[in-house]
């Protein structure tokens, strides 16, 4: 019996090769400091995915992308309305780390995108036993704000966010 980790043997996928787009500027958080050279260079799901794909899972030394917790398809963006929706899939049905992953996603998006963007985060339907309860907590901004003032939780979130710097290039 393995003690400790919720999911001791996660399935790990290859990190999908990043297709470079023509005239892609060097990696900067949105909005780019240089004016867009292409009029159709709008904020899209890939921009959002790029900002979160390398977040490290709280329990395993792999990114959320590698563990298939997130994919580009699980993100929708409406730049005009200022909305981002992310759905993520915890690795196991009884994942106590789901709220931590949700917190990491929120913090990263707050850092990368304009503050007026409204973000909705949900677990993918059927992926979690207490799905409704987790979704409710993930989207209660008062609970999120208080959680981020908790130094222990904040430290865990920071570790998941900043160790991703090992992966970005």
């Amino acid at each position, binding site marked *: 019996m393995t003690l400790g980790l919720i999911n001791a043997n996660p399935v790990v996928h290859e990190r999908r090769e990043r297709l470079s787009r023509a005239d892609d500027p060097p990696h900067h958080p949105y909005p780019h400091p240089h004016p867009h050279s292409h009029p159709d260079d709008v904020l899209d799901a890939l921009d959002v995915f790029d900002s979160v794909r390398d977040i490290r899972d709280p329990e395993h030394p792999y990114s959320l992308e590698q563990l298939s917790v997130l994919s580009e398809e699980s993100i929708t963006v409406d730049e005009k309305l200022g909305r981002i929706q992310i759905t993520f899939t915890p690795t196991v049905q009884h994942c106590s780390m789901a709220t931590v992953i949700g917190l990491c996603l929120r913090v990263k998006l707050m850092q990368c995108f304009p503050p007026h963007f409204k973000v909705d985060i949900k677990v993918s339907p059927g992926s979690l036993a207490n799905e409704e309860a987790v979704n*409710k907590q993930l989207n209660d901004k*008062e609970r999120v704000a*208080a959680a981020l*003032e908790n130094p222990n939780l904040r430290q865990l979130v920071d570790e998941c966010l900043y160790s991703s710097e090992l992966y970005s290039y």
Partner: protein
Amino acid sequence: MELLDSNVDLKELQKLQGHADRVWGLAWNPAPHNCGGASAMLASCSGDKTLRIWQMGPTHRFDCSTILEDTHTRTVRSCAWSPCGKFLATASFDSTTAIWKYVGGDFECVATLEGHENEVKSVTWSSSGTFLATCSRDKTVWIWEVQPGDEYDCVAVLQGHSQDVKMVQWHPLVDVLVSVSYDNSIKVWAEDGDSDDWHCVQTLNEGSSGHASTVWSVAFNSSGDRMVTSSDDLTLKIWDTSSAISQTDTEGFASWRHLCTLSGYHGRTIFSAHWSSEGIIASGAGDDALCLFVEEKGNSIEEPSYRLLLKKEKAHDMDINSVRWNPKDQRILASASDDGTIKIWEVREIS
């Protein structure tokens, strides 16, 4: 001026900037003349851990006269003035509630109420001046009795909610308390006449035409026979107690019934609703919009209903967390936002 039949607009009078983080709560001083002769005084509390006091000067502009800082160690979530206007209570995520007293031009922290296990979400002062109430993520509501010498005794720890309690509000006339919660319910609390024990006299949940998600706020009308609640379910609900109101009889307040649901006006969580002395309900939500509602005066045989008077889209750049009418000037409204600003508005009739 009868507003019900006219067209109105909401004019932005001033934008108050200064807080370094989102503004969560607002409170107008009910008796500002007791605090150095100001004609209007507004307290605001923030994620920047401070409370700011804004005073209206001779030019009718608000300036920040006081910043209360270095007391709370986390977000200040809610603030409330005592009925005499000389005391201010601040409730914080640091699990404490601080009491400030106006002394010779300044505010001094004269007491700290401790006991909640985690974040305090709301504080409210009874109109009798006898009680304070606080509520918390620890699911409890605490009632404190004000004693001479700036002492505060906890007289009740009320359990009953199954989740985080978002707000508490005393009835404007009698010592009856209402609490609203993440458990989707509204609870009414009163003291048992004989035993002086506080207990829950009524619960309004989904079965009693209540909300289907977290209830964020509650506010009474000035006569105390109606209350409005706002929720994550995107609706506002109006509740009525048809009992005759008397100063001493609290039993009439155990029978609130659903009167009306206002839906389809906000696209995201409605964080706050407040009732003006004239009967206008203001609401502020996560869709950045501010709405005003009034009672539809029509056929007296039908159930009372409410209609939208005005919707101000993009009233702020981000979520609106609190809306409060000035008790001394019933056409003036303040709103607080995640964008870190407070706006002062005037409701005007337009021809």
